[in-house]
């Protein structure tokens, strides 16, 4: 202590840290007019997070309201708007967008060894379309709301509902173009911008899944865009397309709607599969078992996924022969997903497994997605679907694959690539606890819904006083939801805290494999100092190497330390080879 202690602002300036994409410029304009795919990814991270929070609020209201068979605080008119908001926000503004636009945008150029995506300005336009669309959707929900459900079935949505259907559809329409432009960008990047030596079969499986996702996006999204536009025309101009009073066909809407919306669920899950492959490979320190099978299974899912939409319509009055074809192909499309699950499991055999939090998310994904996928078979089988469709069984099924699948994988990927994206290490202790909270809260929320659905509890029901016997399951579900909500909010805090307090991350704190780990954390604006030339195979781990094991641990604990500090304080520098 000295009387002449210096005020912090008078301290001599620290040597400036190397320029990376985050600190290269600080103005708002540099963020809002950026072409850098990494900045755009961060923009998306914040905006998808915002919409996720709103959709989650809606979910909280739903679960609160459902604790009592005769409701708690809402009128049915309001409840119907709340569940519609939950579905529309979560499907169109979160699930379809989050992994492609945050992790995909950030990682694809890095993983293929490029400086940016093929069309950076188109990428920025993507984000603006998303924000415009999302804002319009939100406006529609706040000023009046919409009560058609996210499926917009006609003629309710086109002739009977007196809510903001048209406004919300316009918002979704714009969001659809955001999706399409992202898809175009990814396809061209993967085809044309791979670094020298980066052959297709040296690509990380995340890139394979993003490529398959993009193909689905560009083929499916335009169809929903025009379909929803036709609903708007029917509402505004009384154009008789789907309304039977005027000769239209309400089931035609369902065909057109599900032609996109079934592939849409593959848009939501394929990126999650990609993240999953990265997590399993890098935390088992072993090349994914059956790499080629996993890569091609993504393509198979993308292709077959376009041929099964009618399994949402078994009882819609479509002919039973149509139904038989759709059911058959649905069982076919289930197989590649099973293949992936088995391959990930086999990767663990003779691996060298670290159980840091991203791996905990990856392992819980395997369990939850398996249940979610298998319960899909109950629904793909026509006879069993008759009783289960439109019930909570469906709700449970899709939450298992969407939340237990996509959201879990997103959290795992967010934690895994957090050091790369932000240059900071977060507290893994908190993260591990959080992974357990999410897993347990999720199961408590949604498993009872399978039973309620089998008993016959229909979905989209505000009141269930006609069947009060399921109340116990609703209460369990709502209790679980509180717990799950905690697990979804906590990361904001410990990840946010890492931005200030976390240790600085080195280029490869996990000791992982991939081009993104060959550059600094965070990466410079143009990703690589020099264009990489790829000579190694993908996931080229040598699990037996002791050096590798120790190096990675040390990096987590003492990031930035070169070489390997042994117990005796000796410094070993060794190469992986």
């Amino acid at each position: 202590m000295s009387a002449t202690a210096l005020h912090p602002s008078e301290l001599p300036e620290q040597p400036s840290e190397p320029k990376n994409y985050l600190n290269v410029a600080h103005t708002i304009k540099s963020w809002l007019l950026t072409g850098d795919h990494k900045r755009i990814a961060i923009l998306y991270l914040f905006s998808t997070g915002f919409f996720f929070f709103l959709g989650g609020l809606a979910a909280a209201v739903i679960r609160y309201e459902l604790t009592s068979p005769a409701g708690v605080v809402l009128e049915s008119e309001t409840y119907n708007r709340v569940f519609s908001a939950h579905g529309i926000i979560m499907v169109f503004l979160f699930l379809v967008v989050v992994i492609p636009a945050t992790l995909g945008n950030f990682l694809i150029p890095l993983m293929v060894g490029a400086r940016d995506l093929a069309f950076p300005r188109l990428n920025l336009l993507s984000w603006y379309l998303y924000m415009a669309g999302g804002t319009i959707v939100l406006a529609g929900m706040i000023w009046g709301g919409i009560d058609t459900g996210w499926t917009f079935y006609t003629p309710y949505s086109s002739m009977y509902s007196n809510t903001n259907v048209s406004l919300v559809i316009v918002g979704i329409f714009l969001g659809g173009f955001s999706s399409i432009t992202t898809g175009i960008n990814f396809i061209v990047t993967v085809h044309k911008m791979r670094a020298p030596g980066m052959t297709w079969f040296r690509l990380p499986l995340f890139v394979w899944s993003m490529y398959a996702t993009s193909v689905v996006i560009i083929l499916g999204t335009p169809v929903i865009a025009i379909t929803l536009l036709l609903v708007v025309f029917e509402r505004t101009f009384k154009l008789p397309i789907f309304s039977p009073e005027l000769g239209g066909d309400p089931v035609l809407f369902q065909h057109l709607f599900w032609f996109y919306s079934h592939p849409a669920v593959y848009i939501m899950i394929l990126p999650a599969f990609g993240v999953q492959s990265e997590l399993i490979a890098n935390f088992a320190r072993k090349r994914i078992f059956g790499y080629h099978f996993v890569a091609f299974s993504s393509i198979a899912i993308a292709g077959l996924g376009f041929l099964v939409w009618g399994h949402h319509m078994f009882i819609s009055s479509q002919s039973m022969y149509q139904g038989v074809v759709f059911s058959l192909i649905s069982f076919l499309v289930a197989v590649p997903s099973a293949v992936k699950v088995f391959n990930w499991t086999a990767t663990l055999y003779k691996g060298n497994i670290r159980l840091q939090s991203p791996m905990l998310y990856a392992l819980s994904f395997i369990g939850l997605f398996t249940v979610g996928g298998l319960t899909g078979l109950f629904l793909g089988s026509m006879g069993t679907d008759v009783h289960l469709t439109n019930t909570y069984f469906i709700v449970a099924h899709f939450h298992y694959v969407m939340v237990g699948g996509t959201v879990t994988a997103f959290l795992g990927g967010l934690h895994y690539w957090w050091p790369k994206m932000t240059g900071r290490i977060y507290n893994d202790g908190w993260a591990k606890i959080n992974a357990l909270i999410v897993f347990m809260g999720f199961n408590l929320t949604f498993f009872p819904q399978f039973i309620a659905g089998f008993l016959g509890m229909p979905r989209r029901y505000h009141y269930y006083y006609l069947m009060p016997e399921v109340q116990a399951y609703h209460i369990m579900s709502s209790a679980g939801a509180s717990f799950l909500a905690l697990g979804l909010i906590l990361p904001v805090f410990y990840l946010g805290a890492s931005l200030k307090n976390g240790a600085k991350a080195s280029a490869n704190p996990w000791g992982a494999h991939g081009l993104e780990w060959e550059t600094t954390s965070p990466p410079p604006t143009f990703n690589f100092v020099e264009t990489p030339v790829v000579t190694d195979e993908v996931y080229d781990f040598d699990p037996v190497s002791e050096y590798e094991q120790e190096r990675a641990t040390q990096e987590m604990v003492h990031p930035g330390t070169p070489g390997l500090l042994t117990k005796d304080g000796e410094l070993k520098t060794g190469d992986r080879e």
Partner: protein
Amino acid sequence: MWSNFPLAPPSASNFAPEYDFIFYTLLALTILFTLIVGIAVTVFTIRYRRGTKVDRSRPIYEDLRLELTWTIIPLILGLIMFFFGARLFIHMKTPPPDAQEIFVIGKQWMWHAQHANGVRENNTLHVPVGRPVKLTMISQDVIHAFYIPAFRVQYHVVPGRYTQMWFTATKAGVYHLFCGMYCGTQHSEMGGKVVAMDPKDWANWIANGGNTVPPMTMEQAGHRLYNRLSCNNCHGAESNLRAPSLYGIYNSKRSFANGGAAIADDTYIRESILRPHNRLTQGYGPTMPAYEGQLSEEDVLNLIAYIRNIGGMANPATPSPTNMQNVPVQSARTNGQNPLSYGAMQFDNPSSDPTPTNRTTNPSVGAIAAEDRGDR
């Protein structure tokens, strides 16, 4: 306590056993594969956790036979389940030709069912146990779905086209009826009951106009039937050439054309309705038609109840206004006509129902035969 946690819905239709078999098979397969994967993941994660001293040499990165195995086996299992599911569905979509047809109209936010002989009901469906029932459905506005969990059947009810579903109830009872397709504000209140009844009970129910008339006393029901059958055409307040008056007839002494006599008790009145020519009142010929085979026992009892008091009241009993308020829809359906006669209109309409109503299969035949045999 465990009744708070039901696990399965009642199984009350012909489809339920087949359905439950497929469902529980799928459940077993789900549990099996989840366990396989879950145990494998757990075992590998523990065994091959970083730092464990186990053999990690010669790891394998691909194995075509393994890939084919775990592709083909799930595929075959899936195709088997597909086959069972499709077969059940096709069964559900092909009603038997002798299925009894009931018409259903769905609208925001109620169900309206109409039986072939004209009986109507709202938010309830009465069906006989053991007989196939085919529902022909249409919506008046948006898409709904008619869902009976206990029967494992559900189908969309679409505006502008008829959709069908069928089932055979196998267990009497009261079961949930729900609207399964979101249809607006009161979607969750658009439900009711399916009442599966023993065939005899159902026959009575339907023969008596179902629940469409307000509850009546037997005397009121008898009066209604008396008018419907036009008994008062011949049996006036005073005796005339055609028929004796029935006023005060009950328990009076009757003399017969063949010289006998009897007290006009319930048995006598019953016989006079069903086979009037058996014992003609003195002074009258065999003019009155026999109602044997056309009335159920309940009908006869109702007539007797009325005839006991006939003439004792200045005006025939009408259902009190409070009765009508219990069934508000009825006034709409009767288009302002006298509700008493509404039922009469129903029975006047010839039914195209191929299955004959129960009034022709009459238990009274056996009773009369027993009488003739001298059984008492």
